[in-house]
């Protein structure tokens, strides 16, 4: 694909292979914490959505706490990722003071510190998806940790992981970029997940 050139192309292939190894066989439900290098982040979410949507044909919800929906959509479009049956929850746009345009497949939440609102919105979005099999990508817990107290993110993640497990057919992927500041918090959140995958 477009970005496979030089050194980055090499890294990219290895990364794809790793993601594929971990997330291609989706027979079982899981809640995974996927820790990625900041530079690899943009490729990772493309690859994930490709595997889940194109190959496994799953509908899902994508929570974006880093990039406004508009930009993320451009990012996916430019990599020819089909966004049909994908609902976005955008936690960035309203915080930036920008007027959120009404979008068919995107719901806007006040800001990344509105955890309760996020939880309620997510519940409604997941409920709306028809069919049993679905996925959730949370992009990302490291953003939530910037805007909220660790304790609040811990409660939220615990609640989220339990809820996902109680809904058979759901696959949850919590993305995170590890930093010196959030290392301990991520370790704690890992306890609520079925697997932790490190692409660093």
């Amino acid at each position: 694909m477009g970005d496979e050139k030089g050194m980055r192309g090499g890294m990219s292939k290895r990364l794809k292979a790793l993601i594929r190894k971990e997330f291609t066989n989706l027979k079982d439900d899981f809640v995974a914490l996927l820790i990625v290098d900041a530079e690899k982040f943009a490729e990772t979410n493309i690859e994930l959505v490709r595997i889940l949507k194109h190959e496994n044909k799953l509908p899902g919800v994508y929570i974006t706490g880093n990039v406004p929906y508009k930009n993320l959509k451009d990012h996916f479009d430019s990599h020819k990722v089909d966004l049909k049956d994908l609902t976005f929850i955008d936690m960035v746009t309203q915080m930036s003071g920008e007027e959120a345009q009404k979008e068919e497949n995107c719901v806007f939440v006040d800001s990344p510190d509105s955890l309760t609102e996020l939880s309620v919105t997510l519940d409604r979005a997941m409920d709306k998806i028809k069919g049993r099999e679905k996925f959730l990508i949370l992009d990302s817990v490291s953003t939530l940790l910037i805007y909220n107290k660790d304790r609040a993110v811990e409660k939220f993640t615990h609640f989220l992981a339990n809820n996902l497990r109680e809904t058979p057919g759901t696959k949850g992927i919590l993305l995170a970029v590890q930093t010196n500041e959030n290392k301990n918090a991520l370790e704690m959140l890992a306890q609520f997940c079925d697997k932790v995958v490190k692409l660093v």
Partner: protein
Amino acid sequence: MAADLERTKTGLVGLDKLIGGGIPKGNLVVMSGDPGSGKTCLCLQFLYEGATKFNENGVFISLEEDVEELEKFSTLFDWDFKELIAKKKIKIVNVELYDFDKLLTTIEDTVSSINAERLVIDPGVVFRLYFKTELEARKRILGLGKMLKRMNVTTVITNELSMERAKSLYGLEEYVADGVILLYHTKLENRFVRSIGILKMRGTKISEKLHPLEISKEGVKVLSEQELFEEI
């Protein structure tokens, strides 16, 4: 056993889930909340649901707003109180604040006039205006609590929260009330969140968490399956 208690369903599905199906019949519940947290709204809804869904009559004793104000307030929501009042399923009474004995008589008479099974007194916080001394207030308000229990009418009395603490209803909450419900409308850095918590409910296993609450044209909705994650 909690399961053996006869319960008065509030009719708010989410709230009933948090309190084992409803308020144990004949119990007295104090509902303390921040200004604008939805106390009056929830109380009206409690009576409306009772009259329309469970065929239980209800009385609203208003110590602050007059009947017209309350009727006007209720039109913000999808409720038709006028019809229920005409059918004598609900009575709204505004009691002047000067004579506590008169208040007690009005409560008893109004409840028995329509065989009400639900009673609201809103806002209970103005009780103190009836009395000169705290001792007198304590004695008489505890007496009110005992009278209500004798009448076996399921009662909600509202109270105000300020600076995170409930203003005292002179021991009513501690000594007579069977249940205490807290409604929060809290300012975080740049927004408000609404939530509800159950502090106690006699004979009932309660949720120990705070749960989010929404207010819309349908009234108060308690999201019992959700938790509040913000620190308030």
